[in-house]
């Protein structure tokens, strides 16, 4: 077993007297109450796991999509620096209406209504509920292809809800914050690969517009087929 003589030599000598403090560290801390809690008394972002906590940085992930015959398809780079670094990188925020990245950091995204969905590694979120002020809701439609979904469901919409009323974190089995996407993938314990479930996600905005969104693959980089979180996706706007 290792032994250390650590810190004994870090003790300082001092020509000081009458020291009656036995707990000096916290005495020298400073606390400034400049924040405000959410109405529930709990800011949902404060319960997010470290890997998905807000980062004061704007994602550089590319949104590379094209639209043909009203179907937009392409890739969303939510690799966030790879598995070892992603905890300290931000979500990629996407506006599905215009097919573009929204350049906000995780903190600004909390007050932005511009983005529809956010992606970081295997965590997907929707701008509503605990994730943001965008009033988006999402319905999960069992469907293996985008073409199968021609109209929006009339019910079944939910919003992101990863913090309970008593400020406890709710996650899906992989540890990602619970969002309206739910458990959107199957995890293969043998290969450790993620496979999207045969689902289409209908995102509804508070102006009534709706978009049907499908994840084709979590490994959408044709040049690097094992590169996770490089989503190949497709979507279309519904009547």
């Amino acid at each position, binding site marked *: 077993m290792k032994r*250390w003589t650590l810190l004994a030599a*870090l*003790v300082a000598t001092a020509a000081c007297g009458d020291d009656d403090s*036995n707990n000096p560290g916290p005495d*020298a801390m400073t606390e400034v109450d400049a924040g405000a809690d959410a109405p529930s008394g709990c800011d949902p972002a404060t319960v997010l796991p*470290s890997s998905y906590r807000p980062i004061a940085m704007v994602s550089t992930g590319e949104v590379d999509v094209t639209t043909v015959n009203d179907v937009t398809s392409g890739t969303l780079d939510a690799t966030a620096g790879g598995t070892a670094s*992603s905890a300290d990188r931000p979500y990629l925020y996407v506006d599905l209406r215009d097919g573009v990245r929204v350049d906000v950091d995780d903190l600004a995204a909390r007050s932005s209504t511009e983005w529809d969905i956010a992606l970081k590694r295997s965590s997907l979120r929707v701008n509503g509920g605990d994730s943001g002020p965008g009033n988006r809701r999402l319905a999960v439609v069992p469907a293996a292809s985008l073409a199968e979904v021609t109209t929006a469901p009339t019910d079944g919409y939910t919003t992101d809800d990863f913090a309970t009323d008593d400020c406890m974190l709710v996650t899906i089995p*992989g540890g990602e914050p619970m969002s309206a996407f739910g458990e959107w993938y199957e995890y293969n314990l043998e290969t450790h*690969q993620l496979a999207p479930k045969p689902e289409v996600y209908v995102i509804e905005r508070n102006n009534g517009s709706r978009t049907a969104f499908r994840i084709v693959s979590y490994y959408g980089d044709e040049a690097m087929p094992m590169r996770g979180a490089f989503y190949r996706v497709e979507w279309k706007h519904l009547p």
Partner: protein
Amino acid sequence: MRARLAIGLGAVLAYAPVAVAARPELADEATFGLDGGAVLVHYATTGPDAVPPDDADDSGVPDFVEEVARTAEEALAHFATSGFRRPLGDGALGGDARLDLYLRDLSAADGNAVADHCDETGCAGHAIAENDYAGYAYPSRTEAIRSVVPHELFHLVQFAYTLDQPATWAEGTAVWAVEHLYGDGNSDFERFLPAFLGRTYRPFERAVGGFGDAYPYGAALWPYFLAHRFGVSAIVAAWEGCVTSPFLDALDAVLAERDASLATAWIEFTRINAFTGAHAIPSSYPGAERWVAAPREPALEATATVHVEGLSARYVPITLDAPMQLTVSPGGAITVAAWVADAAGAGVELLPAGDGLAAPLEPGAYTLVLTGLSRGTLTTPVELALGPREEPPVDDEDDAGGCAVSPISSPASGLVPWIPLVLVPLRRRRARHPGGSQRRPVSQSM
């Protein structure tokens, strides 16, 4: 399931929630356990899970399996001797009452621990470890076995307390347990350290989710520090406390019994961590010069903003060629402590001043250690500023209340050896200068 991350292999699975799962099925399974031992090793003799067949001693049992069994027994005995609970018995699962360790051809993760069933006393489970370590980056088979087998068995020890602690504590103490068992005889702890020491800015108290991040394993440095600072009994007691409390609350209670607290221990921890890698000093952790250095922020020139969140630390270099006043002003509802030290580890605490903390500095080269002490806060800007001194330096000879802080090379008489420097200057300074006046320039201590 608690899974061990496989370093350097592009592993993706890190810490899935603990699951209750069926026992593995192995092709042409054989078993082996040492006489009188507590562990039964299950291994395949054919198929992809088969272990290396070498049997140099002609015992009829592969040498690999024998080494696994010996390692397992050694680990369990060590954990019990250290004061930890023994893993709960699994009844007759796996064939008899012994703990079951299955050897399988795993991918990415090189081991995991699985709960079989739980009751009011805890959970019983079994462990799974890699069958041959082929393709893994370990320098030797023994190194691999010593890294993985005790780690997974320590998870079974944890199961005897609770399943519900976060990965930073569960994985961190499992890696620490291996280090405590083998010390220089194994390097698993050292391999994982960069994942923690390189990310000291992360909020330690937050849960960890997702895949492939070794930070919770590198967090073994925290129990490593605690064990040496407060004794292994503090780790044991903390796990006992985890039966009813989250681990940080349990730790706070345990440390309170040792005239400390979570906050004071965390402050010490973050300050000691400043002295690793290229910044190591003889009085730091043994071998700290071989560890990665805690990340440094850009050097502070005049003003800067750094972000602090949760239990964390930021390290900011400061070089002065004239006397200056350093102020630290949090911009939100967070609690921080700040300390400025020179390269030899002698330093001074920043004391409350206005809405923040401040200290006068003399010319020299320093590192500001900014310790985050809040739990569950968002990343919050903290403003740093160097400005004109608010008071003239105090004359040494005439300063009846001043503090001459200096590093020492031998224990100071009258001081408890384990009182680290990081706390001493503050006590003195607060006692002597409650109004913030007559502060002694830090350079006079160096």
